[in-house]
């Protein structure tokens, strides 16, 4: 197989995932049915995972699916589906506060464009995918060596979240 054809296929895949992410992101924002929004979010998150794969960030891609699609979105769907009458509500998808919104958007877009142009991007030589091996062991090593404190702090953050969840449950039991 010539490297040229691979390049084309990955290019197509990139545009496919990018378009899917943008389009379904649009549905999330503009849909008037909240369940459709939640559902479209699944495709957005999935497309982003596809983009991670194209960036050779395999572990990150799988984590994205496991945590966001498999966990957080299920939570959102539960929230949407289990809340009485929320399904029938026609949510407002019109525009309010146009001026402040456009200022904030312009600032964020400007920052992003600035980062895009100023960053010294790391380019894989010759776009050779095999140059980057699997990332998981490196992440594991980094977690236990250089970033061991943030790693342990993360467990404390998770602990606090668990305590919060237990608080919600206690209120339920009192009823």
């Amino acid at each position: 197989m010539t490297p040229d054809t691979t390049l084309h296929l990955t290019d197509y895949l990139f545009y496919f995932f990018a378009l899917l992410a943008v389009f379904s992101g649009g549905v999330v924002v503009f849909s008037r049915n909240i369940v459709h929004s939640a559902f479209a979010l699944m495709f957005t998150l999935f497309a982003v995972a596809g983009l991670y794969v194209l960036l050779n960030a395999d572990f990150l891609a799988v984590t994205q699916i496991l945590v966001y699609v498999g966990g957080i979105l299920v939570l959102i769907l539960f929230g949407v589906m289990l809340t009485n009458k929320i399904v029938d509500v026609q949510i407002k998808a019109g525009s309010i506060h146009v001026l402040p919104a456009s200022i904030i958007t312009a600032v964020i877009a400007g920052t992003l464009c600035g980062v895009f142009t100023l960053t010294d991007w790391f380019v894989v030589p010759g776009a050779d995918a095999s140059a980057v091996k699997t990332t998981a062991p490196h992440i594991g090593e980094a977690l236990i060596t250089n970033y061991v404190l943030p790693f342990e702090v993360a467990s404390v953050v998770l602990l606090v979240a668990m305590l919060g969840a237990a608080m919600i449950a206690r209120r339920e039991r009192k009823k």
Partner: protein
Amino acid sequence: MEAYIPIFLMLAIALAIGVVFLKLQEWLGPRNPNDEKLSTYESGMAPVRTARERFSVKYYMVAVLFILFDIEVIFLYPWAVNFRALGVFGYVEMVLFIAILLVGYLYILKKGALQWD
């Protein structure tokens, strides 16, 4: 990266199989709907209100706790893959990590958040 192309192919082909099956049935199967047939099934009774009622918050609780523990599990994967290289220090660090979360787990148990009664 290249290793993933067959996966994308597989996903596409699986989708195609499903769509072809459904289209074939649309083409082959009969189609004579009536109001009775299209009404919601409720063991032969006339349906009472909508199904989309409120539900126990416990299901939501399970999902919240799942996300928290799922993140913990994800932290464990890169560590497990590198287990031998990280040695005793890595082991102790991870036991500490799990122990902190165990406190939360015990607290949840004590509070009865996982009690289905």
